[in-house]
């Protein structure tokens, strides 16, 4: 078969001048399905966002963000405000490396660590140096950039997965060096370097949470603008071109290796900046902070927001950091945890099409729950269903099977929890391998088991649950919107 142009109508084109409407080149089927899709609320919202100029979006975000300190307390401002901004700034840097230049850099976090340690050596009692931030932060960025250049150099020969492995190795080597090798107690070992100076610019100390918050907001906004401009410049086009097709880019006069190294240097310098700031606000540079868990968080932010999208990084950072903080063990809003969890599940279910199915699934799950609860209570006795859920809200125990804690040991039912867990894994596998209405049917017990697992064990272990939840979120996102929330859809092979 010969090549089929997607518009058969257009085959004798030389004589017929194309009609000057906006729909040329779109055939009727595509137009109809687009029209259908364009009426959904998500599409309307998306269009509205698309039409808003980017400068307005940034101003709106900065305006909103700068009002936050007026209606939150110091503690919340730090964990929900400052950390979100820091994550967003780190995400901006990663977005250059992975999103624009397409380098799967898993050593990114080591660059942040480099920045942190550089700041720590130069502004702490370790060597008695107390340099001001206007000197230390640029030096931290330069050191991190040097590391980035070194890693970027590896990208001359290593492509894709190989580059990822080598950079991950580097990240681990950094941890090992700071943690274990620690020559002459240079890095302070596992304890890191404590008692760092606060950020001091030209004699002006940033000590309160508010000052740091506004400082970070300014840094982030400036960086966002700079990167937005960079993306729309010659270099940005070169980054994207070599991501699309390195060979074609090289032949089209783009020095691919140089451009890749530049991207790695850029990302690393931004990471170094963030590392230095993080070390300063925490008052210590501790190597274990710059390990794989942190890397996963930043990647999750960029993937969730959509690779290559600056606005997406802000959205991703907000979602991920809020999730992380609500699930943190010291968090004092346990009920929020629950709503977050159920919200994610409902979103997940709502992604099923056609629309009738999620409704059926949710209704059936509610009914199924009451039925199981009644059966368990009747056959095994009241003790099995009269537990108190850990995250408060006793009402849920009338629907979900929550065994009472053992009166002697004060522990939960280990066997029951294990059975729930194994049952959940089996149910997920079964759901995934079934089709059509069978899958919908299998989803009902799966959801109920998920709830049991959550109420009986996961809610108590926020750290683990956060990562499970991120995983679920990203899987759901891949099914619903593979390009991320604000990313633009990419076509690999056409």
């Amino acid at each position, binding site marked *: 078969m010969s090549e089929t142009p997607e518009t058969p109508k257009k085959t004798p*084109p030389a004589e017929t001048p194309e009609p000057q409407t906006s729909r040329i080149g779109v055939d009727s089927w595509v137009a109809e399905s687009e029209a259908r899709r364009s009426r959904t609320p998500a599409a309307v919202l998306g269009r509205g966002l698309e039409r808003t100029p980017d400068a307005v979006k940034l101003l709106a975000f900065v305006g909103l963000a700068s009002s936050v300190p007026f209606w939150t307390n110091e503690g919340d401002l730090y964990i929900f405000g400052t950390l979100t901004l820091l994550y967003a700034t780190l995400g901006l840097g990663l977005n250059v490396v992975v999103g624009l230049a397409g380098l799967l850099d898993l050593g990114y976090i080591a660059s942040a660590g480099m920045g942190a340690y550089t700041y720590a050596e130069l502004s702490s009692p370790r060597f008695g140096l107390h340099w001001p931030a206007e000197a230390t932060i640029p030096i931290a960025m330069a050191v991190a950039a040097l590391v980035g250049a070194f890693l970027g150099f590896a990208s001359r020969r290593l492509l894709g997965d190989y580059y990822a492995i080598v950079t991950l190795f580097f990240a681990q080597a950094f941890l090992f060096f700071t943690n274990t090798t620690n020559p002459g107690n240079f890095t302070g070992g596992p304890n890191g370097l404590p008692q760092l100076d606060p950020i001091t610019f030209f004699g002006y100390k940033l000590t309160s949470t508010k000052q740091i918050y506004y400082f970070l907001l300014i840094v982030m906004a400036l960086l966002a603008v700079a990167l937005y401009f*960079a993306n729309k410049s010659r270099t940005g086009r070169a980054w994207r071109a070599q991501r699309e097709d390195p060979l074609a880019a*090289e032949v089209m006069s783009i020095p691919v290796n140089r451009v890749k190294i530049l991207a790695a240097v850029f990302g690393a310098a931004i990471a170094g900046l963030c590392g230095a700031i993080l070390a300063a606000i925490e008052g210590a540079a501790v190597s274990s902070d710059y390990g794989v868990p942190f890397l996963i968080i930043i990647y999750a932010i960029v993937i969730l927001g959509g690779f290559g999208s600056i606005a997406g990084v802000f959205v991703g950072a907000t979602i991920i950091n809020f999730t992380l903080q609500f699930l943190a063990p010291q968090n004092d809003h346990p009920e929020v945890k629950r709503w977050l969890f159920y919200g994610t599940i409902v979103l997940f279910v709502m992604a099923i099409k056609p629309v009738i199915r999620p409704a059926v699934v949710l209704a059936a799950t509610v009914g199924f729950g009451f039925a199981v609860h009644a059966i368990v209570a009747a056959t095994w006795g009241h003790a099995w269903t009269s537990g108190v859920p850990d995250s408060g809200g006793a009402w849920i125990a009338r629907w979900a099977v929550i065994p009472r804690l053992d009166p002697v040991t004060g522990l939960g039912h280990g066997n029951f929890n294990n059975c729930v867990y194994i049952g959940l894994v089996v149910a997920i596998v079964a759901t995934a391998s079934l089709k059509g209405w069978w899958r919908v049917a299998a989803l009902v017990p799966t959801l109920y088991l998920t709830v049991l697992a959550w109420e009986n064990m996961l809610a108590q272990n926020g750290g683990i649950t956060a990562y499970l939840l991120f995983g679920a979120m990203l899987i759901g996102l891949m099914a619903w919107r593979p390009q991320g929330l604000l990313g633009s859809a990419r076509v690999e092979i*056409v």
Partner: protein
Amino acid sequence: MDESAPKPLLELRGLSMAFGGLTVIDDLDLVVNEHEIVSVIGPNGAGKTTLFNLITGLYRPEKGQILLGGESLVGLQPHTITNRGVARTFQTLRLFLNMSVIENVMASQYGKTKVDIVRSMLRTPGWRKEERQIRSRAEEKLSFFGQRLMGYRWSQPAYSLSYANRRRLEIARAMATEPRILLLDEPAAGMNPVETHEITELIAQLRDKGGYTILVIEHDMHVVEGISDRVVALDHGIKIAEGSFEHVATDPKVVEAYLGTKATVTK
């Protein structure tokens, strides 16, 4: 155009290339003069695309010389060769699919522009001026294709283009590197008869109006007949015929390369 002695632009001397034991290009001599359109023909596997890969620096020849305007290109990086004035299109279209049409043409001007990233991030007046130039040059190159790549298509992603338009965009992208010689690898492949006719005229215009020297690989003999000043036939990396289209098309060696050995076998 003056009719004085032709000035050679691209010269290949004793070029050889082998993959393992397989010789793909064998002691090839070829000259392309300024403002000339030379077609390279030959059956599949004759070494035509390898020849392009050698000229653009994707492969390094084992022996021989490649000269552009008297300067050697051997051993240079592909992007440097492009900056010296060689641009190509690909037989298996290699556009930057997820970039917009106009960005494809803007991206390939990288080598001809200078403003660095720091000035880009600050949007200095120098950046503004150069960016305007890049854009207007891109628009100029795209307008070469008439209505085909105009207006609303500029901001569409390249993957939304039809096959024929992708071929056109590849040519526009190559033109934007401001080459002295354009290497077109099967520009008419996958096009319908009307479009093939169009591309034939376009290649002639590229020479006459654009002032490019063109080396083209093509299988469609109507196109080859329509555009070529000179035709070179390759088989197994060896030049088996060279001259006008009529001369090459009737050459017994070329006929043999395309249709197999003499009729005695099949009789």
